[in-house]
């Protein structure tokens, strides 16, 4: 009898925690407001994918690949697409330290203005590497939520940073799968 009670207790514990886990997942619904400013950290072309996804999700979003703080005027959410492309940086006439500075100023200003940040990493494992990882380490902790493509999180970098900073992390299989969570995350 004791055993049965214990089993029921344990089962109950698992069900409740599963439900709680479910609830935790639901937390990422309606947490952001529009309009949105989408910018890149690292100038990789995935910022274009984010822009298309936002459009598909019916969100009011402006794309500015190398946005400055003055562009935050009237903005309710800042979306940062993480990923370094050397070609992209070259095209924007930026080096990695200038790019990091730009994003840092933008993030600081967003924090001052209470504009929440949503971080995306959509390029998968081919868009990782030291330079990208530095940006992830620097800016991901400032975000209120993150959506990443699974293959880019093979080593669990996103998982560990998000866990440490209590940031809800949504892992999707492909960039296109980010559409639904993105849609849900906005009011």
């Amino acid at each position, binding site marked *: 009898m004791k055993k049965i009670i214990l089993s029921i207790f344990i089962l109950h514990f698992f069900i409740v925690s599963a439900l709680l886990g479910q609830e935790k997942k639901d937390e990422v619904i309606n947490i952001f407001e529009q309009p949105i400013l989408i910018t890149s950290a690292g100038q990789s072309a995935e910022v274009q994918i984010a*822009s298309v996804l936002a459009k598909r999700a019916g969100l009011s979003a402006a794309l500015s690949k190398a946005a400055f703080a003055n562009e935050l005027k009237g903005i309710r959410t800042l979306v940062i697409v993480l990923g370094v492309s050397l070609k992209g940086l070259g095209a924007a006439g930026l080096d990695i330290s200038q790019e990091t500075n730009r994003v840092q100023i933008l993030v600081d200003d967003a924090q001052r203005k209470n504009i929440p940040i949503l971080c995306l990493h959509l390029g998968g494992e081919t868009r990782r590497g030291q330079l990208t990882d530095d940006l992830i380490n620097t800016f991901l902790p400032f975000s209120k939520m993150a959506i990443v493509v699974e293959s880019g999180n093979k080593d669990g970098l996103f998982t560990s940073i998000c866990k440490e900073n209590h940031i809800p992390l949504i892992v999707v299989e492909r960039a*296109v799968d980010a559409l639904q969570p993105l849609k849900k995350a906005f009011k």
Partner: protein
Amino acid sequence: MSFITIKKETIKGSILFLSIILISFFSGKQFLQMHKKDIIIQGPGISSKVKLSVYFPLLKGTPGDTDVYVFKGKEEGGNLLILGGTHPNEPAGFLTAIILIENIHVDKGKVFIIPQANHSGFTHNDPHEGNPQRFPIQTPEGIRWFRYGSRLTNPVHQWPDPVLYVNPSGQKLSGAESRNLNRCYPGKAKGNLTERIAFGITNLIKKEQIDLAIDLHEAAPEYPVINAIVFHENSAELAALVYMELQMEGFEFRLEASPKNLRGLSHREWGDTTKVKAILLESANASHGRLKGKPSVALIIDGKDKNYVKASRIGRLFVPFDEKGIPLKVRVGRHVAAIKAFLSNLQEVELGKGIDITNFPSAREIIEHGTGIYLEPPK
């Protein structure tokens, strides 16, 4: 005594002289083999075949003039240009163009295909690279052979190279780049042969009001822009849509914006000087790379290389590379899949510019069964 010595030397000298003559004769013959043209069979869907010189008469009769295959649909729609053979040592682009030429029917819109954009580059093949002059493709009814040319215009057709090359867009490059078609855009009417070819292609884009132009390439697995879609900023949305569609079909690509400060390239200058949406596609060709082992027909076709497997293991490559290699059929399949995805999304960003093609070869079929299934039998 001295008489005998002289005689000996004369004999030695004569043998040497004769050997040189023979070697020159046979190597010369071999060398000229590269001038033998590839056979491209006109598929049933072709409306006409014209020369590039139609768009720029100064090219007429030069080794830079090349064939343009035209497909006209019954219904008005968008206009597409596909370029293979910008770099004749990148066979996936060339072969993709040939497969389309021999198969497609266009119902709506117009399609222009140039399989050998730098025709002169097909007439030689960088002897120091040791690549084979031709590679075979097995079709169900026999083998067809195609040339494996050089990245650059034949120096016999354009010589000498300047020490420093300033291209038509004003960028300074090393001298040999004056023979690289993909550094010479938008071209120059009174320029060197390669600049004239570029000028002809730019003229075609303008005159035919091309909406979408795709330049097919291959690059070494150690090159950072690989398995990539490079897009001009005027086609950013289209490229992103295509990237996602390809992902849904199981093809991983890398999306790269065309750098504004890298001048003379197709994806930059076409987009800057005309209204076309300019795209460049790269696949990974081991026979192109610097880390490759022995160059061979097998390396071109099967794309297997031990050195690249090693390089991949220590993280030096920008594309996955294992014992299976990256065969030509996979590289062509990827190009075909990407072209198809561009066509299916073009209508979405440019209303009324749809292009409908039937008999479009299947990327999956090519990857599974090889390119030969979509080629006409040898004639």
